[in-house]
């Protein structure tokens, strides 16, 4: 029920509806619950036909960098 999917904003119309791409699937969703300005190219979380929030790209990239470093450190340890 509370699952939600990261999607990319492709188009925004005058009724505050956006067309988003979810890994190849296109759908129209409402931006009515969004306080922040949503731009084309933003990543957002979709839940039952609405955008819930903008995904913070910097935070996501930061997490992924930390994970990469962790995996590298573990592999170096295993090799030595």
């Amino acid at each position, binding site marked *: *029920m*509370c699952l939600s999917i*990261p999607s990319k904003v492709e188009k925004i119309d005058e009724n505050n509806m956006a067309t988003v791409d979810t890994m190849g699937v296109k759908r129209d969703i409402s931006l*009515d*619950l969004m306080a922040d300005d949503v731009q084309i190219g933003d990543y957002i979380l979709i839940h*039952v036909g609405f955008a819930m929030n903008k995904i913070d790209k910097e935070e*996501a990239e930061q*997490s992924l960098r930390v994970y990469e470093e962790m995996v590298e450190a573990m592999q170096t340890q295993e090799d030595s």
Partner: protein
Amino acid sequence: MELKDLYEGFRNPQTIKSFASEIAKEAESLAEPLRVMEVCGGHTHTIMKYGLLQILPKNIKFVHGPGCPVCIMPKERIDHAISLAKMDNTILCTLGDMIRVPGSYSSLALERAKGADIRALYSPLDVIKISKENSNKNVIFFAIGFETTTPMTAAVIDYVVKNRISNVYFHINHVLVPPAVRAIMNPRKAKINAFIGPSHVSVITGSKIYEPLSDEYKTPIVVSGFEPVDVMEAILLLVKQKNVGKAEVEIEYKRSVTRDGNIKAQELIEKYLEVRGHFRWRGIGDIPESALKLKNEYSYLDAEILFKDRLSNEEIDDHKQCICGTILQGLAYPQDCKVFAKVCTPSNPLGSCMVSDEGACNAYYRYGSIDNE
């Protein structure tokens, strides 16, 4: 960063393995076994689907929580939905798995097969479209869900009020996470000493709603995303807090959760809905102030008030053999149930925990038997 990185980056097997080895090291210093409740059924699903139990040390146990809105709906309220759907000139709309959950004598799916007009929607927004296409019928939205789904219902109420749509009514069953956590912690039977906080409830509410809980129960709470890497990182953060004697609210799911949450969504909820005095949870019983209802000024939209003559509030308990309630309180596992995977299966569920994807029984049935001992 590509969109696919938001999926693949947080499901990477190498990263999961690295976290498993970090957790194993840290967990050696745990003074007592970690009994962590993942409040939300979405996390239960991730834990089972990715086999996380099998790669974690023996002194880390999961206790599956009540965070599955379909699972906690008491039979009398499912009977409400059925009674409403059977009224003349009515279209009953609801979300997801709700239509398969057995009430005391039937389910919405069975009633639909018999001819009632019952629609399982992708989005609450569809209510508006259906009401316009069927202006001569009453459209009743049987609204379910935790804090995640409540603002979407509020958005539909907002549209109905502002556009004076006269054929849409609401039966509100939105429930709240913090009172449910208290109901489980107060008897102290489940002996939980750490929590994984819900992902998307927290996107809406912010992590601040857990601060009173971590203070009151001296228990660390880490808000985690739904991907397996998120859950592993959350476990590591919980173990680290335990090892230094901390009990704080921490956010692992930083890419989507803030302390304050989505304020616009919160304001929309507050405009139309308020806390109700009592709500009975399936298997757990009455939890005061644990659910929402329409505010009095919008009672003209409230199906529970308008059609009250047709709705019985007599409490109806689960099937005697079903231990859903005990599982929802974190006091038993699915395999402790006599009818699990025998009489009770996803295609013929006896209890609600087997119906929904987020129910513990459903997750155990799908992803194999797991030894929790």
